[in-house]
């Protein structure tokens, strides 16, 4: 509904009216800001969160190294954004839907995706739920309510609005969170999604990871406004900006957002201010577009360090435990990587399954022709030839876990 207020001189608004404060609770030394109250968080959940952050960090470090060694074709790190992603996930019910962009593996770690499951996807082997069809880091899990990643940016944002509308009609009290970067927020799908979610009163949380860069493009060349958050005004949507490296602030903000979404069927926009400490991907080199000095300044704001100091101050964690955890995780990464590397690729038949619910006659003819050809030149198609007669059924991880 538009306002009825009249003016009789042409006075323009400039957009400067929309400047947004940042919600912070935890200082970098692990103590709370004056006047700040920590969200309710028991030892078990605090450690679940922190261990997920460390597990994600170790996975990312080792797999980037593996990519550099030529063992893996491609990789993307969550490094620097663990608090934003895991803090938000920890604020949800485990049955709430997550529709991520591609840098949110921490959410999967928090929900219990194992290193073996990560590795099977990264190496596209016969146990990959996605059947070796997508580049590394395009994870998905039905049992963990984590929508399979899609490379095109921002397409998941209106989908999240639709998914959440379905959840509202189902009436089971679930919501959807969708993650995206500040660059993806320039796509038309972002604007379409926010408008539709507001109009149709949908229980969805739009979680923007404003990490400063879209590959090499700094946010100052991405938008002229005060970040992403002011856009919520245009859609009359609840909005908060939060320090994305502050685990307590992210947790508190997202819990409150979930209440608004689920109890009042209102969408919420969260803009988490953070920094992509690593390169965009294994194919990127940030030294061409940003300074070491800038990176160092953000390394000092490391979200893991900040939470660790808070945990240690509570005597819930120690440097010894930290060391032991890191060592155990590093060993586990190497073991699971070795296992996954050795596994064969998915069978050739998986080339044509899942295009449709059933393989069409025309597609079956194409597959038959391909098999005949491969049998003629088996040495030229080693991966295809080795799996002409498959006996492996690729696992559907939801088979025993009920509905999404």
């Amino acid at each position, binding site marked *: 509904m538009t306002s009825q207020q009249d003016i009789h001189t042409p006075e323009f608004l400039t957009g400067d009216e929309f400047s947004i404060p940042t919600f912070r609770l935890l200082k970098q030394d692990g103590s709370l800001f004056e006047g700040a109250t920590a969200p309710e968080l028991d030892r078990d959940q605090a450690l679940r969160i922190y261990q997920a952050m460390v597990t994600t960090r170790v996975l990312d470090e080792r797999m980037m190294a593996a990519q550099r060694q030529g063992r893996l074709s491609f990789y993307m790190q969550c490094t620097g954004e663990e608090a934003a992603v895991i803090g938000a996930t920890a604020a949800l019910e485990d049955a709430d*839907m997550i*529709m991520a962009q591609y840098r949110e593996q921490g959410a999967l770690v928090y929900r219990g995706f194992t290193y073996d499951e990560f590795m099977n996807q990264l190496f596209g082997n016969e146990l*990959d*739920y*996605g*059947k070796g*069809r*997508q580049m590394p880091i*395009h994870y*998905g*899990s*039905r049992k963990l309510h984590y*929508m*399979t990643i*899609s490379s*095109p940016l921002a*397409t998941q*944002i*209106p*989908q*999240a*609005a*639709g*998914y*959440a*509308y*379905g*959840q509202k*009609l*189902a009436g089971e009290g679930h919501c*959807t969170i969708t993650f995206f970067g500040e660059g993806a927020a320039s796509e*038309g*799908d972002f604007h*379409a*999604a926010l*408008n*539709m979610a507001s*109009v*149709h009163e949908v229980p969805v949380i739009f979680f923007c990871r404003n990490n400063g860069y879209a590959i090499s493009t700094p946010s100052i060349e991405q938008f002229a406004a005060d970040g992403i958050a002011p856009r919520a005004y245009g859609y009359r949507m609840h909005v908060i900006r939060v320090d994305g490296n502050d685990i307590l602030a992210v947790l508190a903000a997202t819990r409150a957002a979930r209440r608004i979404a689920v109890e009042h069927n209102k969408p919420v926009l969260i803009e988490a201010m953070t920094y992509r400490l690593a390169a965009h991907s294994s194919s990127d080199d940030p030294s061409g577009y940003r300074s070491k000095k800038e990176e160092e300044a953000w390394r000092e704001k490391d979200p893991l360090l900040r939470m660790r100091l808070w945990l240690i101050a509570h005597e819930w964690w120690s440097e010894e435990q930290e060391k032991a955890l890191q060592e155990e995780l590093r060993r586990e990464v190497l073991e699971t990587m070795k296992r996954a590397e050795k596994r064969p690729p998915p069978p050739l038949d998986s080339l044509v*399954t*899942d*295009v*449709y*619910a*059933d393989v*069409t*006659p*025309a*597609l079956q003819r194409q597959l038959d022709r391909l098999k005949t050809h491969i049998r003629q030149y088996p040495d030229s198609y080693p991966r295809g030839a080795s799996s002409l007669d498959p006996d492996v059924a*690729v696992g*559907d*991880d*939801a088979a025993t876990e009920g*509905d*999404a």
Partner: protein
Amino acid sequence: MPTMNMLQAINNALDIAMAEDEKVLCFGEDVGIFGGVFRATSHLQEKYGRARCFNTPLVEQGIIGFANGLAAQGSVPVAEIQFADYIFPAFDQIVNETAKFRYRSGDLFNVGGLTIRAPYGGGISGGLYHSQSPEAYFAHTPGLKVVIPRNPYQAKGLLLSAIRDPDPVLFFEPKRLYRASTGEVPEEDYQLPIGEAEVTREGSDITVLGWGAQMEVIERAVALAEKEGISCEVIDLRSILPWDEDTVAESVLKTGRLLITHEAPLTGGFAGEIAATIAERCFLYLESPISRVTGLDTPFPLTLEKEYLPDHLKIFEAIKACVAF
């Protein structure tokens, strides 16, 4: 059996689907209380409420993105794009998301519940942007099904199949026939198969193939040809993707000649795909080159629409040329 026009048949199919399954939702621009600009969704909001039949903001990429999410969640969305000419803002959501949802997730997730309805085609003085036939763009995208009905009976049966199909379906409705085409339509629930063509007339000299609004044009051309003693076999392809190669090949093996007609431009049109496949499968049986009667390679015109369209006279002449080759 009641007589219905195509809009009434479509409305009736939506009504049946919504009554049967509360997960079925209808939405799009002006789809709510107004019932859509063509009234295909009339009375559905009154009957099933605003939560299940509603207007959306004017944003096609949002409509289909929203619909993809709903379908992934387990709902059965029937999304309307007001004119097929305006489907292109949603092209990314359709070709990169809808079509690949099941494949890319290894069947963990799918949007099989989704049906996208859109009026297509010319003959209504709609000019460039209310006349296009975009089926060939989508036929190039594995994972989609593309269905086009020719009359009210077909529209109801095929739409009910599309809504219940385990794969996402693009359902293009020949808007020129919305009110012009009437016929007997059973009141009860029935389905017609997706992926199967239908031989609507048997003949021996030439196979004439089309879909949607062209079927009526073909009938007029065939009537002229029969007067000249040419026996035509007529096939309605009905599904553009996947398409029924076997029925078409079987017919051409018998008649030795094939003419394909569509309103869309010649170059890159779906007739080219059919011609290549049939040439491969029936080469030694062909008595004449496969003939295509289509729109010109231009944007859709306005005042020269009649000249542009592949009408019955152009088809009639092409039939004679094939037989005389």
